[in-house]
């Protein structure tokens, strides 16, 4: 069970994440996207997933029981190679439904002062 005190708190990663051309090309190739000049729309998950996984594990949730419920991206401009991002994640809500813990996490990717992509994930931790 998630500590309710963690809801609403924002955790910012100490380390920044550099986006390489290789990582964009690799992601694009998997889905058959020919344009590798910008990152595909869901590419941000490759940065934010790691962060939310660490956050939830530190919060005491069992990651192996996590199922992805839904996902949203708001993209102010495309991600390009060479950018350096700081990722901050907030547990927006946590509720228990029939023994399953339903956690909503928002993650923001900032390049300097600019918010480039926000992602919202609903994760269901199965009982």
């Amino acid at each position: 069970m998630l500590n309710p005190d963690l809801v609403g708190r924002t955790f910012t990663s100490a380390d920044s994440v550099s986006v390489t051309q290789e990582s964009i090309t690799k992601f694009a190739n998997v889905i058959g996207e020919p344009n590798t000049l910008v990152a595909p729309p869901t590419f941000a998950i490759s940065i934010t997933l790691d962060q939310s996984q660490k956050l939830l594990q530190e919060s005491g949730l069992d990651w192996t029981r996590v199922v992805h419920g839904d996902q949203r991206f708001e993209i102010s401009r495309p991600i390009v190679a060479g950018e350096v991002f700081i990722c901050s994640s907030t547990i927006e809500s946590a509720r228990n439904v029939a023994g399953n813990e339903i956690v909503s996490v928002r993650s923001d990717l900032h390049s300097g002062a600019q918010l480039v992509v926000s992602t919202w994930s609903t994760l269901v931790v199965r009982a």
Partner: protein
Amino acid sequence: MNQLIAGQELTAENFKINRQLLIAYADASGDQNPIHQDEAFAKSVGLPDVIAHGMLTMALAGKYLSAIAGSEKVISFSAKFIKPVVVPADTDVNLTISGKVVEIVEGQAKIELTAIYNEIKVLGMAKGVIRL
């Protein structure tokens, strides 16, 4: 690109999903959850077989969305994961993505997406917004 019209049905696209693709996606995304690669593990947690990453299905729907006007034009994209895509060994599973233009407002088109595998709808409330 042809002009989009509200109500327009967009041509469907088929995507092939197999175990190799799941490994490639795990590598590209960093999501190494064994339910997407290891059959014994997947079955041990009550799944029928290895399942595709929900985010892979969404990434393929994102590729479909990108093909409409370019990936740099996608400004919003969301979906619910309502059913898993089961991927047996040595099998190509077919995922069909189709789209419909719901509305065009202030230079933005809202597209409703449908993702079907084995006659099962796997994404719910899937929609994207693209800048025209």
